[in-house]
């Protein structure tokens, strides 16, 4: 199920990040702290699902045959998914969801900006569309970090705890590997290791304003790009893929 074509594999990574993140966000529907947030969270979730579809459609086009966007979302098992572990962690409380989003959005904005300059025209087009969304996402998650970090004692503690739990998973965003190195050299993939410094600067600045501390740890948990996931992804896929697994080969 993993294609040989390196660009398709790259598109799948990015599609997996977006699908799994969008799925986690969509779990908030009818569960947000107030009605406006139900709407806002589902807006962001929709952006990610839309992005996943574009990446998967492109991968399907490169793979050819009967492959569609849904083949990738619904017919692969845990070991074939190559999303960042950060995206798959259970949604937790509102602080966890917001902190995850902030850490990711601060990465996604420079990432999508760079992707829009990819030498691959399709990836560049997806990047250009996504960059507008990511700009809004980051503005929103930054605002929430300020409110929750510099809100009440409880919200501050919840946020700091979430940051401490999430921090270990952020290194994976900047990790390099042979596939990435090859595509970076060809001007196709975003040079993610090079984004780390700017990301850390954005994050540190917002955390300082929000009276929160940058977690002090060297622990780095990685594996998603190699299909080594947390236990949680299997359960997420069991739910996501239920219909296609229970009733294979039908149109819905």
């Amino acid at each position, binding site marked *: 199920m993993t294609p040989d074509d390196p660009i398709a594999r790259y598109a799948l990574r990015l599609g997996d990040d977006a699908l799994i993140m969008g799925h986690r966000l*969509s779990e908030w*529907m009818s569960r947000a702290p107030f*009605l406006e947030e139900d709407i806002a969270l589902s807006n962001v979730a929709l952006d990610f699902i839309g992005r*996943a579809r574009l990446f998967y459609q492109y991968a399907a086009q490169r793979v050819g045959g009967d492959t569609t966007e849904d083949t990738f979302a619904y017919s692969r098992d845990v070991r074939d998914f190559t999303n960042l572990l950060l995206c798959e962690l259970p949604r937790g409380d*509102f602080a966890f969801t917001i902190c995850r989003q902030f850490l990711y959005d601060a990465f996604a904005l420079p990432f999508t900006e760079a992707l829009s300059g990819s030498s691959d025209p399709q990836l560049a087009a997806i990047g250009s569309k996504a960059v507008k969304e990511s700009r809004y996402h980051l503005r929103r998650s930054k605002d929430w970090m300020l409110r929750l970090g510099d809100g009440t004692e409880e919200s501050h503690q919840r946020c700091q705890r979430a940051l401490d739990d999430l921090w270990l998973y952020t290194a994976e965003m900047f990790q390099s590997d042979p596939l990435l190195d090859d595509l970076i050299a060809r001007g196709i993939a975003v040079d993610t290791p090079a984004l780390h410094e700017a990301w850390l600067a954005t994050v540190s600045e917002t955390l300082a304003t929000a009276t929160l501390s940058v977690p002090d740890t060297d622990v780095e948990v990685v594996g998603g790009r190699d299909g080594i996931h947390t236990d949680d992804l299997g359960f997420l896929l069991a739910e996501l893929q239920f219909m296609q697994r229970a009733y294979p080969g039908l149109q819905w």
Partner: protein
Amino acid sequence: MDKANVSETEERTFQARIDAEEKIEPKDWMPEKYRRNLIRQISQHAHSEVIGEQPEGNWITRAPSLERKAILMAKVQDEAGHGLYLYAAAETLGVTREELIDRLHTGASKYASIFNYPSLTWADIGAIGWLVDSAAIVNQVSLQNTSYGPYARAMVRICKEESFHQRQGYNIMMTLMKGAKLQREMAQDALDRWWWPSLMMFGPHDGESAHSAQSMKWKIKRRSNDDLRQQFVDQAVQQAEAIGLVVPDPDLKWNDARGHYDFGAIDWQEFERVISGNGPCNRQRLAHHKNAHDEGAWVREAMAAHEAKQRSKARDVA
């Protein structure tokens, strides 16, 4: 003039404005009962939109394709938006959203009883969109002419989105009916379970409706329950037949003389049973809402605290 006469004059002027099809606006004088009646109806409507997120929302994470998933997310998001317009419309009558939510949680305020039924299969998402949203549209189109301005204007916006919802639901049913045998059976089963509850959505027969007469006089309601229900049946029966579904009513028959379908008796005992708490999901629906609201309390407090800090900082600068 004594006080009684003043209010009698005001009431007469008020009724004259209603009779002349003028819209009543938030700052206008209105009888206390008109205000209370509207708060009851609008908040019940708002709660229905919000509780309605649950039976459909629980299929967002299980939708059978990415396209269906995105459409369903957008739809459920719209329902939340409708809830928001409606709470805002109710707030113009001098009640807060917090109070309305509290009344929902204590059971003092109701929501549409149909959402106490579970959405067991994917076909239920089709049936809810097609039938429940159709019923809602029939009712809401008539409410675009309701006498209270903010409510009427909210309805205009909501109706536009509901017709998209109705089409997505019907499209799911149509796709299922063109599919495999098990898909057609799934669609028929969903229709069997959602048909009668959809008819009940229009409320008791005209003769037995507690609030109807006064609401019609004040033009809060524009058409009677039975009249709206008939319109819904006439539309839905033809839509069902067009895709090969059988409406689960042996008494259903076209009546040439009336120009409408005759249909069987509604089981009002079932309606009473479900509305009074014995539906399959009553407890879960309320508990889910209450739980989300309670778990969100610290977030709302944090927002308020942050805002207060910002205000005091701004004052210090000034």
